[in-house]
């Protein structure tokens, strides 16, 4: 279903203005409002047949009001004039009962974004159900054709979304950004005498043209699934571990959480007081590029309206900047870094080697291609997660391994990074190649 006619950017911006006016009229000394409207289509196929067609259309808004140093928040899926009044009143009511916190309030007015580069993130795709299902069917057929041991399917899905996000606050700042996101994923099941294994592949892009070919996605899903068959046991012990690019992206996510404002002021981080201190092996830089064209997290401003800017959080292994919004910055006595809501297009930059060279460097050890479960304690850095992957002997893959755990401590893992690969995975907000860490305990 197309968006209703009144859901255009100028209308949504004027809605933000009306909500802010209502808040001021009702006694807020400052307020900020986020309005969203996303429409999309998701088409799933399985075993050569159309299975699900889902239309989504999400609306609604959230408001935070400040009364002096107190604040209250409210949200609703309803943007009718009645709901605006009710929701503003609910937020103000909450602000009567919360306590004064000198760190509360909008970010400083002079930090608001005032230039809006073309981020090139809005590429609507008017794909219909028939074409969408054809692409999903092509992916699944290619996956099923990879090997006769692929015996079943969890299906393939094409999803397309377009959304408008508007943020405004009492500084007079109001900005709307349209963005699109399209993806195609496929998951199949292979079986042998030991049972069934499944794996998946996906492609994602801001523009339909940037998606990988459907059949290629299917073949990758099939290849990954077959690679899991015939897994063998390993002996419990200490071995070097190589994270492939997708799992390494998640691993760096833990480090970024540990230097994020909320983790730091709550003391839920193993990297307290780490500014200027080493957090990874030398030669590793973690830098964000918020204005990258077509980036998955590209934005001109953060969740406080503050201008985003390119910068390094970790440079040559040393923490140069925490990841802060205005609230967490005030809590820590620092300045906001324009990261309310997180990092924007984070690159792990290193002196990368070909991924195959990393296996040579490792010699004998584990290549991790999949991780499961929780088991990361950010307070202590203790790390113990379920893993699956490939056993590497003398630099060569020899057989898959599964149903094992890998354990160490995040601090030791990051400081012990031996080398990083050039096989950058572009599908994530945190972009990295594969990463070879030192010894971890593998339990089987």
């Amino acid at each position, binding site marked *: 279903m197309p968006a209703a006619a009144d859901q255009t950017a100028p209308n949504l911006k004027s809605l933000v203005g009306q909500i802010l006016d209502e808040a001021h009229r009702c006694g807020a000394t400052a307020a900020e409002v986020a309005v969203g409207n996303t429409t999309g289509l998701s088409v799933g196929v399985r075993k050569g047949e159309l299975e699900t067609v889902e*239309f989504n259309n999400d609306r609604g808004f959230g408001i935070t009001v400040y009364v002096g140093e107190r604040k209250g928040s*409210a949200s609703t899926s309803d943007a009718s004039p009645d709901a605006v009044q009710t929701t503003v009143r609910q*937020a103000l009511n909450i602000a009567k009962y919360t306590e004064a916190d000198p760190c509360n309030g909008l970010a400083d007015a002079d930090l608001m974004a005032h230039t809006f580069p073309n981020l090139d993130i809005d590429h609507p795709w008017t794909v219909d159900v028939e074409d969408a299902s054809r692409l999903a069917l092509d992916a699944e057929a290619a996956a099923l054709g990879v090997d006769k041991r692929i015996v079943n399917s969890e299906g393939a899905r094409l999803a397309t979304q377009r959304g408008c996000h508007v943020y405004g606050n009492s500084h007079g700042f109001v900005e709307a950004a349209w963005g699109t996101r399209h993806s195609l994923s496929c998951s199949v099941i292979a079986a042998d005498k030991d049972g069934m294994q499944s794996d998946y592949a996906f492609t994602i892009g801001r523009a339909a043209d940037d998606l990988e070919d459907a059949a290629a996605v299917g073949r990758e899903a099939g290849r990954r699934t077959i690679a899991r068959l015939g897994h063998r046991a390993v002996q419990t012990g200490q071995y070097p571990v190589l994270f492939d690019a997708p799992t390494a992206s998640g691993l760096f996510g833990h480090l970024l959480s540990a230097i994020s404002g909320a983790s730091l002021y709550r003391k839920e981080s193993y990297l307290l007081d780490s500014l200027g201190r080493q957090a990874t092996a030398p030669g590793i830089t973690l830098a964000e590029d918020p204005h990258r064209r077509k980036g998955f997290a590209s934005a001109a401003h953060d969740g406080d309206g503050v201008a985003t800017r390119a910068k390094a959080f970790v440079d040559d292994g040393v923490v140069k900047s925490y990841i802060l919004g205005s609230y967490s910055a005030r809590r820590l006595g620092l300045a906001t870094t324009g990261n309310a809501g997180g990092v924007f297009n984070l690159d792990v930059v290193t002196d990368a080697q070909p991924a195959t060279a990393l296996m040579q460097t490792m010699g004998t050890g584990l290549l991790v291609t999949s991780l*499961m*479960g929780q088991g990361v304690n950010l307070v202590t850095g203790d790390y113990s997660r379920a893993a699956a992957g490939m056993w590497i002997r003398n630099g060569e893959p020899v057989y898959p391994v599964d*149903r094992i755990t890998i354990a160490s401590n995040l601090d030791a893992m990051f400081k012990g990074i031996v080398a990083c690969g050039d096989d950058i995975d572009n599908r994530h907000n945190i972009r990295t190649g594969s990463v070879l860490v030192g010894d971890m*305990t593998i339990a089987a």
Partner: protein
Amino acid sequence: MTDALENATRALWDAGEIAERDVTGLLGRLTSPGIDTGELFFQLGESESWSLEDGIVKSGTYSVDRGVGVRAISGEKTGFAYAEEVVLPALANATDAARAIARSGQSGAVKALSRNQPPARYADASPIASADDDSKVTLLREIDAFTRALDPAVKEVTVRVSLNHDINLVVATDGTMSADVRPLARFDVMVIAERKGRRERGFGGGGGRFDTAWLFATDAAQRYAREAVRTALVNLDGIDAPAGTMPVVLGPGWPGVLLHEAVGHGLEGDCNRKGTSAFAGRIGERVASELCTVVDDATLPDRRGSLTVDDEGTPGQRTTLIEDGVLVGYMQDKHNARLMGAASTGNARRQSYAHLPIPRMTNTFMLPGTTDPDEIIASVDKGVYAVSFGGGQVEPTSAKFTFSATEAYLIEGGRIGPPIRGATLIGSGPEVMASISMVGNDLELDTGVGICGKEGQVVPVGVGQPSLKIDEITVGGTNA
């Protein structure tokens, strides 16, 4: 009892001036040739939370979400759309979008709606309205002071109360109509304790489908605070966890997350209908040791996972999944049950009107055995005793599952030894269930904090079990 239905229709239809004949009209529109079944799911959800951090009540949020999900099913195909304005034109649009799954233009007819309302499993009062805001924030402050006074090692305290009230109404193309009014309340205390330069986290919390009287009329909040401090202090003394395959004794209650992961997800109807579960086609086979009887029970009064009616309008039920080690049943929604020639077991759940219902667990637990829990510990020479977990995950296809301990101890010579740092356990569902060699007489259900994610949808669930011994499972510590 039609009170729930009357309340729900008033709450969900009146604002948009929707009458029963409008709804039967929409159902008729949905019942075109080629559509086997379908429904409209009306929902009004209200939630409120307050949190205290750093000694002050820092934030509160209130939200209200209203909408209608429309689903049409044709064979194995499902069409789905939703509207966030509960007014007739928006509902008609969503209905047309959903029914487009079958290509035909004619409409059918649905006559009168038949009311189908089982007895409620919980009271319908709103937890949000059950106490004034002043009492809620005062309680947070009291618990903060209480927690800090428990031990000088406590450095940071976060206290949160989360209250929900959810009214929903399902009208289906078979002419049935049922409603559920679900309260959900939860109270959490998190602490960071610090001693000799080492910091650890501790957690205590609980709740259920009731209003806030449990907080104001009992010492529940104080118990959660003591539990948070106790677990943080225990972990401050933790030594490196062992690595390798060994016996593990699980304590009662929350460690029942074992059952949720090791067998629960693999026994949901969708993955068995599709043959993608390691348990598919195995009804009547032995899948666990004969000591194991596992049930899913939506009918328990006031529990977090309980449902008076599920999200397709089927009354909540108690379903035996595994009886004396033999697989006897799956958890079904209407769609998968129909395709498998079975009946729904009342396990259809959805995160909201904006999500498709899928088969999910409610409260899943193992029935008690006869063994004294002390005897179970005494039977282990060298192993691990795990009493709390941070959560788990499973791949139903391979039956591989994992869960991570947040409070665990070594067992040495039949006695509980020093606490160990968090470690992840991993195994295969049927293998681990087969190696359960002792089951305690101490069944407990969890305190009411479980959430379960599947296909991107989050719903509240309950788990439980007696103490039990797994002869062999992999423990993922650092000490090889």
